[in-house]
């Protein structure tokens, strides 16, 4: 039986153009820009200096804070400089710039495609390994995985949920990964189960990927305690809280983490990265990235080394089309438009979407007619039209009271608004301001 979450949600056109394209390996870039902050939390501290020769897989930055992650080199060569480069945020952030020479790997990394099934490490060793190899959540939020796996005292996890939903239109990287590396991913799920100490894992997959559901169900028969759950197609089902509601019908309280209801959610891509780190000793240095768009000549899925400039991936996709309006890092709903094509692919980049001019242009903003469509589609039960108004009038006390911090920024409200109002823009501004106020209050 197909499940889904109850409250809100929208159905954007799927446009999964690249879903039949097998994962290809993208050639190495000439210069790699590896940012030292590719995760949520404190930036890592660079360990290399200008002129150092480095190998693939060598640690080049250390995550020192509690919420931080290590960074490893994805290429071999010489460190050109440690300087600021424009990243996907449009701001300049510190990155290690590497002049690529050859493809020389650090010792001890198993690069074969042989599947290693036996899990020899203990719970603590697994978490230490995941920390060491810099694994972060690959769904987009890039929360360091080892932190997620350390269940705080007094809480208990009883179910692991694997997110294979990929509800964003256009993106197909998780879909291809589940089809082509299903076996490895499943071992990764087993490792995550062991790290959390749970007996049950559920893989949630939307029903627009019947091949992936079938494939993984077949593999899951060889594993105990792993089930595959088909889900109705609805955006934003891939959001953590919505997925928990859909699969195990538990509601995460406002302002709390999923562990509150005994669940931990990890992306299918993360499960694969965990497999590679634990079984093959390979740090997170490459990921599957979709290059897609209606005008793209050769849309596809590529295994890309972290730090490759977006422009090289676009070349592999057949070059930048003439009618390009926006180049978006991520999907059309939650992705972010790039303002430089030299921005590097980072751990959280699941796709590069090239939108046509017509498709990308914002429509004329009209007055709000209080139709409350935004209210009915909000998966968090908020009132986006009201939040927009109170943020506009800078009434941040009211904004906080209206629970702006619960917004998951899925963009359903703005997608559905018949007056084309920039609802999410203002809500994001409100979240930012209220966040500042709350932090200032906490300091007192």
């Amino acid at each position, binding site marked *: 039986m197909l499940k889904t979450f109850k409250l809100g949600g929208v159905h954007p056109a799927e446009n999964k153009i690249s879903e039949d394209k097998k994962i290809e390996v993208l050639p190495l870039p000439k210069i790699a820009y590896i940012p030292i902050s590719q995760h949520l939390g404190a930036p890592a501290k660079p360990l290399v200096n200008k002129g150092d020769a480095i190998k693939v897989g060598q640690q080049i930055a250390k995550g020192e804070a509690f919420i931080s992650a290590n960074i490893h080199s994805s290429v071999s060569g010489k460190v050109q400089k440690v300087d600021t480069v424009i990243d996907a945020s449009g701001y300049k952030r510190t990155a290690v710039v590497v002049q690529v020479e050859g493809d020389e790997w650090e010792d001890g990394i198993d690069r074969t495609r042989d599947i290693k099934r036996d899990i020899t490490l203990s719970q603590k060793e697994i978490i230490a390994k995941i920390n060491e190899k810099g694994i972060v959540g690959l769904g987009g939020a890039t929360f360091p995985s080892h932190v997620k796996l350390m269940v705080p005292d007094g809480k208990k996890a009883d179910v692991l949920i694997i997110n294979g939903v990929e509800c964003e239109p256009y993106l197909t990287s998780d879909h291809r990964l589940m089809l082509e590396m299903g076996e490895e991913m499943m071992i990764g799920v087993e490792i995550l189960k062991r790290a959390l100490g749970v007996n049950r894992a559920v893989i949630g997959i939307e029903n627009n990927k019947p091949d992936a559901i079938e494939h993984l169900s077949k593999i899951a028969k060889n594993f105990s305690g792993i089930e595959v759950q088909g889900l109705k197609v609805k955006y934003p089902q891939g959001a953590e809280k919505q997925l928990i509601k859909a699969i195990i019908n538990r509601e995460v309280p406002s302002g709390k983490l999923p562990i509150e209801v005994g669940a931990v959610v990890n992306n299918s891509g993360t499960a694969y990265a965990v497999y590679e780190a634990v079984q093959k000793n390979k740090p997170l240095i490459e990921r599957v990235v979709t290059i897609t768009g209606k005008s793209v000549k050769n849309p596809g899925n590529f295994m890309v080394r972290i730090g490759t400039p977006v422009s090289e991936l676009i070349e592999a996709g057949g070059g930048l089309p003439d009618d390009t309006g926006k180049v978006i890092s991520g999907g059309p709903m939650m992705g972010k438009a790039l303002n430089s094509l030299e921005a590097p692919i980072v751990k959280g980049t699941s796709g590069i979407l090239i939108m046509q001019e017509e498709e990308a242009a914002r429509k004329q903003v009209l007055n709000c007619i209080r139709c409350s469509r935004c209210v009915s589609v909000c998966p968090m039960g908020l009132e986006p039209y009201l939040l927009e108004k109170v943020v506009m009038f800078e009434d941040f006390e009211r904004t906080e009271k209206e629970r702006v911090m619960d917004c998951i920024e899925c963009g359903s409200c703005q997608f559905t608004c018949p007056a084309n109002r920039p609802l999410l*823009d203002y809500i994001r501004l409100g979240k930012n301001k209220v966040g500042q106020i709350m932090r200032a209050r906490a300091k007192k």
Partner: protein
Amino acid sequence: MNDVIIFSVASLGAIGIAASVILYFVAQKFKVIEDPRIDLVEGALPAANCGGCGFAGCRAFAEASVKQAEDKSNLEGLNCPVGGNDVMAQVAEILSLTVEEQDPLIAVVRCNGSLANSPKKASYEGASSCAFAHNLFSGEGGCPFGCLGLGDCVKSCAFDAIFINPETGLPEVNDKCVACGACVEACPRDIIELRPKGKKDRRIFVSCVNQEKGGPAKKNCDVACIGCGKCVKVCPFDAITLENSLAYIDPEKCKLCRKCVPECPTNAIHELNFPERKPKLVVAGNEEKPARPAVKADAEAVKIADTREVKKGTDPIPEEKAAETPKSVEKDDPASTGNSEETKEN
């Protein structure tokens, strides 16, 4: 019938008298004794309620002033930027206190990243709010410190003193500015600063807040401060400091000598309301370069901008010619004269 009228008038009258007696005693009992000077001071204030003094409004400022009169003999720390020295003198007179004259301030926009100087590299069509755009990206021109041009400062101004110039895409401050500081608060990039108005409205300031090193700063904007330090060396009053590759002119130390202005290789230092430079200055600054016929020409024709061009080494003669040609056109062609008059009226 008459009885009814008499009865109602009498009873209502009795209630009225009783109520007035009660109200009289209540009013006496709960009388709020307020210093009458608060009303007087408030009357003297401009009633803009802008908050530029740091209080919630003019009434709050008046209360604070009267309170200060009880403890101190001067109005130190209190200033109404809108009213200026005249209003503060009146307030001081009412409270029989002393007040120090303060230099009037004005908001100064420290960014010259106009559409020409910092061409668009991206186009933004989201919510029209600088605060939001600042969180989202570095700006259409690419400078992560520069003006976003979406007008949060314009919205914050209660005095109609700041406007976005559509040609440059940058805010401009006019004479109505009272230095209340609302725009300084509103700007998410701290571009606007309150600086002394200066004698005869003359001001010199670095019109840039970019803290990047020279190369990256210049890449996004032709007129960015590149932190070369030339102005620091030339300043005879030690008024210029260089921090994070950005020069800052301390208005308290600056004596408005203008020596730094022609030194700046990117024209990032602005001078406002100064008379045109005498040609002597130009010769003194460029002695080693001999080819300089423009300098000998009519002093008024050589504008400040031209002297900068000369410094860069371009041939100034064509410019001089260009300056002359429109004059002759104006004389000959009545249509163009009409146009120029029209623009004046506008």
